[in-house]
């Protein structure tokens, strides 16, 4: 398929601040246009309407931030990774920053979990009580419909300090849990709306170790 030799490349980046309002679909066109501006030799699809080929790992919901997001693309010529990083950062909007450019070790299907940091405005004690329950059933909406999921066994390394919650949840293309669901459970449990969450995905994992 690929006519020229190419280097598989993975960039880790942050998407924070104003960039949290960029939807996943818009993120892809924003990044592709930035890549065009860099003039980096990034592989394009063949065919009638060639387009720059970039794969984004895990979509973030609109309004959520990410500190360690990943995207893959191919370079058709050797360019030092530091230079790739620099040129991308010069072209990207200020709130999208490339932190590292590297050779991918894991496949995107190897992603199993994500670490989240959430600043909340609701009652920390009530949240703690909710997290300590035997079962935390919530309705999860997918393309196939609505199903009930018990969050309890899926949440690991839960830490609550002040108005900040950290936890790890399953992530990946086949099964993904959005931390906002926990706050839907909170609303269901206490009948209180939870407003103004700041949800940040801080890391992604492949099994027990960081996704590389």
């Amino acid at each position, binding site marked *: 398929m690929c006519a020229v030799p190419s280097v598989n490349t993975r960039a880790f980046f942050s998407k924070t601040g104003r960039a949290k309002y960029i939807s996943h679909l818009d993120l892809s066109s924003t990044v592709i246009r930035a890549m065009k501006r860099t003039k980096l030799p990034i592989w394009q699809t063949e065919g009638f309407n060639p387009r720059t080929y970039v794969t984004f790992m895990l979509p973030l919901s*609109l309004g959520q931030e990410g500190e360690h997001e990943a995207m893959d693309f191919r370079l058709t010529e050797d360019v030092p990774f530091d230079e790739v990083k620099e040129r991308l950062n010069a072209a990207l909007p200020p709130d999208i920053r490339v932190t590292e450019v590297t050779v991918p070790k894991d496949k995107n299907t190897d992603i199993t979990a994500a670490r989240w940091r959430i600043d909340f405005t609701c009652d920390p004690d009530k949240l703690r009580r909710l997290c300590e329950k035997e079962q935390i059933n919530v309705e999860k909406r997918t393309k196939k419909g609505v199903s009930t999921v018990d969050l309890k066994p899926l949440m690991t390394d839960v830490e609550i300090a002040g108005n900040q919650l950290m936890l790890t949840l399953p992530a990946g293309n086949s099964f993904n849990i959005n931390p906002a669901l926990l706050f839907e459970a909170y609303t269901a449990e206490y009948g209180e709306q939870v407003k103004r969450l700041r949800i940040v995905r801080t890391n992604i994992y492949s099994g027990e170790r960081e996704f590389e």
Partner: protein
Amino acid sequence: MSEKNNSMMERLDEFLLDVQKPSRYIGGEPGSVVKDKSEVDIRFAFCFPDTYEIGMSHLGMKILYGLKNAVPNYWCERVFMPLPDMEEQMRQRNIPLYALESLDPIKDFDFIGFTLQYEMSFTNILEMLDLAGVPVLAKDRTGLTPIVMAGGPCACNPEPLADFFDFFAIGEGEEMNLEFMRVMEECKREGATRQEFLRRAAQIEGIYVPSLYDIAYNEDGTVKSITPKDGAPAKVRKRIIKDFDKAYTPDNFVVPLTGIVHDRAVVEVLRGCIRGCRFCQAGFIYRPYREKQIDTILDQTRCLCDNTGYDEVSLSSLSTGDYKDIEGLLTQLTDFTTAEKINLSLPSLRVDRFSDEVLKKITDVRKSGLTFAPEGGTQRIRDVINKNVTEQNVMDSVKIAFEGGYTNIKLYFMMGLPTETLEDIKGVYDLAKAVIEQFYATPGHAKGRPGVSVSLSTFIPKPFTPFEFEPQLDEDSVRERQRYLKTINTDRKITISYPSYELSLIEAVLARGDRRVGKAIYTAWKKGCKLDGWDEYFRFDLWKEAFADCGLDMAFYANRRRSYDEIPPWDHIDMLVSREFLIEENKRAHAGVTTPNCREKCSGCGVSKCVGGDVCRAIR
């Protein structure tokens, strides 16, 4: 160095996820210009009185944005009309309308400038001023700043908006904008008053300060006299850029983070139009016709694609097909776009210049839908409107299109053109039918069913055209002609649509309104009219009430034939095209006589005299 207003960002963060497409309300796009406030002397809020998606597609805004920001101590920012969900949140939370670059409230800016692209955005202007916390009536504004001004094509009849604006910029803005900003710099330094600024601004060619003109009316409601005072000129003459090839052109665009209507690089290839179609305001008010050199266009295209990262570029003009060396331009341009894998799109190609070679060059790049605008159904009516297109031209063009694999054609027509009869309406159907037949008669046409979509809008007479004297067709006749066309159309391959008649009536009133119409605009807005250009928000009932409340008769403005010796409300605005020429053209229309285009023969419109003959001679 980023001068982002952090407290405003925090306030927006509280609710932005509750509104549709929040990314259009936060700025931060690549290409947007952020300056250090402490080094800026003049701040300009460039307001487009429609949504982000529409405003961000507009080339004029990009030009003036780049032009002003190229001056180190001037900062121009963008402002758009928020949709109702956003506006409701802003009003609830007392968040005034802010500019996207700094997120600062625009009421603290030196200039609040609107572009007047179409009449149906007028109420949005009032809504935006009000949301900004700026008095909507010019007379209620005190202090030197903010000065509220406007430019753009609808400024050629500024009278309906005279109550709301401190001044209007008539004509091309590339030079004028910097001139009035310099006057403001002086006035701020000297601590001058608003009146003093306006008095000085009125001395700049192209600047119209409505408060410096008194209007008197005859008993029959027509304008009796327009009297300037305080040294304001009797005629405000529009500005033009004489050396268009060297006119300021931005080398970068603000590249939006979310989809907009025209999301691509745009390069202007020519300004003005040689054609002189008698219904077309743009064809007269943008005269004289000027082209950019091929090299200039190529450089600008390369530069824009490099800087924006767009993979699509479109050539912009009133009629790109009239470019003198269109074949040369497209050959060189497609060499570049093909090599760079960039799509080239060419809107507004006239059917009669749609040659085989040109079409092949476009289809080499990408296939898109095809639209032709014969405007009138019979040769007779096309001669009346001076749309020099024959049925044979249309057939030749669609034949090429069908050979190229197209199956669907859009045809644009107008209803209610001067001298129109049912025969001309029948001609619309006959032409659509002939296109269908042409499909089957074309060897090698694509498989599948052909389709013709006919759009038949109600003709709106506009100032500075030979039809400015004409009545708009009344509602009963419009409905009758629509019904007639419906009954004769028995072919299901032809679909006919009629853009809203009510909308075109209001547009007709606003287009040729006088200063008193401002009261009706104000009243309509007070009653809740806004986003009138959007079917789902347009409230004809409220507009009707507003005119009745103000004691104004819409028919007086829309449906009355105006005599040649009547003083039009825009008599003090000089768009360079002479009134004698417009009258002569009106007579020729009624006689069914066409006028050659500027390349064939000078028709003596008066522009040549004003700009010195060389600009016009270059056309031929």
